[in-house]
């Protein structure tokens, strides 16, 4: 069965510093990978996705993630964060039709950007 582990529940960082939010998954089949962002009192919105092809994926707001099949990881990075990046970030995995079209979400990482 698939599972998703986000290794950090909270990540404090200063403005303009780089950040990496870590995500590992387990699955016995090929997967599709996602990062979603949730701003306070809002629903989730897609940051980026990996379906196939290049393992380095670029998303909105300057975020990018790298799919590493051998390490079953999909870490999210941004070279320079802004105060407005303060939010909760969710890693998610879908096995597509073999997984019954369901998506499993990690527990979330709260990114707190300090001035």
């Amino acid at each position, binding site marked *: 069965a698939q599972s*998703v582990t986000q290794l950090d*529940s909270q990540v404090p960082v200063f403005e303009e510093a780089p950040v990496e939010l870590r995500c590992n998954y387990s699955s016995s089949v090929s997967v*599709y990978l*996602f990062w*979603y962002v949730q701003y306070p*009192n*809002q*629903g*989730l*919105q*897609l940051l980026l*996705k990996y*379906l196939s092809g290049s393992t380095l994926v670029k998303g909105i707001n300057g975020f990018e993630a790298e799919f590493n099949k051998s390490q079953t990881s999909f870490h999210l990075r941004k070279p320079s964060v802004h105060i407005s990046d303060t939010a909760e970030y*969710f890693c998610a995995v*879908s096995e*597509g039709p073999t997984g*019954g*079209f*369901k*998506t499993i*979400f*990690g*527990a*979330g990482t709260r990114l707190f950007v300090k001035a």
Partner: protein
Amino acid sequence: NAGVTQTPKFRILKIGQSMTLQCTQDMNHNYMYWYRQDPGMGLKLIYYSVGAGITDKGEVPNGYNVSRSTTEDFPLRLELAAPSQTSVYFCASRPQDTYEQYFGPGTRLTVT
């Protein structure tokens, strides 16, 4: 396009009461999902639907029911509310050819 809309935004229920959380999408998506979000737990899938007339259980279906009579609507029913159902509920939809989901703004439910 309004996207995915949910009503109500907030609700307080007494133990044993029932209610329906409404979800509507105007993107003609076949797939729709109901999740609950508890602090530090991520999102847990309650029910999902792959098209009108077809629904299936997710990870945490107990205490809930759904129906899908149209493509647009996917209501979630709580029959006998319990304090364990205090949570934030999100509805989501996605088109057939991609796996990214579009989320509604959520319903914050408190059962006391």
